[in-house]
């Protein structure tokens, strides 16, 4: 069986880079207020 590294082609890496760019675009956004509020509510209910 081949190692994972050997199985990855240039195309795989290009797709991976683009997927991570897509992720980073969202992940860089500030956490929406609704989630801060939600966690606060859940925590207060304890």
């Amino acid at each position, binding site marked *: 069986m081949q190692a*994972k590294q*050997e199985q990855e*082609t*240039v*195309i*795989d890496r*290009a*797709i*991976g880079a*683009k*997927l*991570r*760019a*897509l*992720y*980073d*675009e*969202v*992940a*860089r*956004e500030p*956490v*929406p207020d*609704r*989630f*801060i509020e*939600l*966690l606060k509510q*859940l*925590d207060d209910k304890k």
Partner: protein
Amino acid sequence: MSFRDDLLNTIPSLRAFAISLSGKRDRADDLVQETLTKAWKHQESFTPGTNLKAWLYAILRNEFYSQMRKKGREVEDVDGNFSSQLAVHPEQQGFLDLADMKLALTKIPPDQREALLLVGASGLSYEETAEICGVAVGTIKSRVNRARKKLAELLQVQGESEYGPDAQVEAIVRSSSAARG
């Protein structure tokens, strides 16, 4: 750090996964909300020291599939919704650069999409992904491979070479492997 802080820290990557998986921002945030609520309710069943992100991804994807089963018809409209979203937000810089990838993701089957996202973007191992999806590692590998192949076709990554994509890619891979040594 409290469980609440831990959850808070995972929200950006949970949202990234949810948006890429569902193709819709509003639906994605509902998924994240549901995931956080369930995680909170069942926090005793999380083993401290294990991968919290993986645990949350598992909750989120289960929620995604259960919603998909309930609203089967809505899923077929993913494509249309994405197009309308593109029309609404063209002013966001960087959005259009990735628009082709977002659209391509909606065109591959959800099981392949989630496997590719977890391995290729969330940085999980094949083993962790297999556990999250409840299938064998080999199944995940094959889903990831099929997803990449389909995305490459959709994005026409391979379209450039007159010698054919395989010859071109093989040549590049050989030379980069050699360089890595």
